[in-house]
């Protein structure tokens, strides 16, 4: 999911890469029948603090359909995960 594009110098500059900041990372999530996460990367979810949806760029070929969850893990760590409706996978993301 990390989009990489080129930033090129005019002369003598080697190929340089621009990356997206806060790009999503694939995560292993176990969810219940409602789609609510129960486990994130083998760590149990203690609490779902918030849930929201993002539907954007539906007018393009790369539409964004995501269901976000802000969860507290049993270790006490806060994390944000989302289910990507387009690819059918789970991801964690910072800065959401």
């Amino acid at each position: 999911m990390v989009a990489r594009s080129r930033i090129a110098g005019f002369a003598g500059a080697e190929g340089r890469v621009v990356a997206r900041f806060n790009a999503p990372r694939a995560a292993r999530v176990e969810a219940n029948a409602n789609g609510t996460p129960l486990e994130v990367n083998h760590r149990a979810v203690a609490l779902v603090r918030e849930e929201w949806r993002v539907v954007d760029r539906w007018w393009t070929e790369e539409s964004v359909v995501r269901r976000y969850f802000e969860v507290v893990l049993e270790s006490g760590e806060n994390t944000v995960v989302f289910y990507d409706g387009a690819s059918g996978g789970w991801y964690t993301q910072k800065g959401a």
Partner: protein
Amino acid sequence: MIACLTIPGLELKAALRRTPSLALRPAALAPEPQGEPLIGPVTAAAEAAGVQPGMRLGEALATCPSLALVEPDAAGAELAWEEIVHALEDAGFSVDPASLGVAYFETRGVERLYGGLEPALRRALAAVGTEWDARIGAAGRRFAALAAASVARPGQTVVVADDELPQFLAPLPLTLLPLERGRYEELEALGVRKLGQLAGLPGGAVAERLGPDGRRAWGLARGGTAARVRGRRPPAAVAASLEFPEAVGNELTLRRALAGLVETALARPERRDRFVRKVALAARLESGGSWRRTLTLREPSADPDRIRVALSPRLAELPGPVVELRLELVELTEPTGHQLELLAAGAEDRSRLRDGLRQVRASTGSGSVCTVVEVAPWSRVPESRALLVPKDE
């Protein structure tokens, strides 16, 4: 001798590099997005079908319904032209690029190097390559060299000796002269269609009827004045470009991207602490074309804010969404051009920070130190809000 190298229709040839199959079909350079609907240069097939460069778009399509329009690629054409001029300079010629597709140079300095005038001109054509259909005219004066180039075929050189000049210029058309369109019509109405006819008129009468421009054209029709060609100073090759993950039309995003580019270009080691005199902002458009504007700063500067403020209004002139934005520092001052502070405020902290970053780069490799550049902070998609741009120096 003064030589003039011309590449007719360079803009079209540069644009056709993206779609070479169109080169053999009737095609013309599409009108500029916000300009008059006049087509640019045309291919040989289009010309054979009756389409002329400068025709109104509607008239051209009516004349040749199968005419393909090629999106202008101004930045691509300028880049290609710069490569051509650079190739000539590499071959030892001191080049004065008068306009896109027209360059002058003196042959005197290199004739001994290449064994005479003709071999030197052939060397210049070889430096440019066969792809562009370049041609060269050489004569004792600039205008005569341009006129000679205008009658040369692709890949050919035409040399006009001084004593043959009046006879050579006489049958050539008036369109070679730098006159407004209305002036040609005025002269044609007076029965003057060839350079020789204009040159034969009394200079005072021409000046009285056509004004200073007419007088200048009359002088050129008689061969022009003997002036030396002054080669250009090669431009500084410092630039930075940013390719967007998706086309961007939002001005605020573009402004932020521009700010990042200014910082990146100014940080390039090739700049070597020199100040920026002239900059160019270019963009590759989503539609496939390109856009480019140059700007000479009021005074040389290396202040990113000042350069950014000077360039930002140009972003409003962009004709459409952009997939790549590019900033070139076209002209730089000499390294000693400006008096700086003896001890800049915070210089020690900055130098320590720079040292630290250099250390990180040395241990983890190029591209490991990045700047976060906000491009769309309002976006609902978190990864679209900012980019990580490598900061190598």
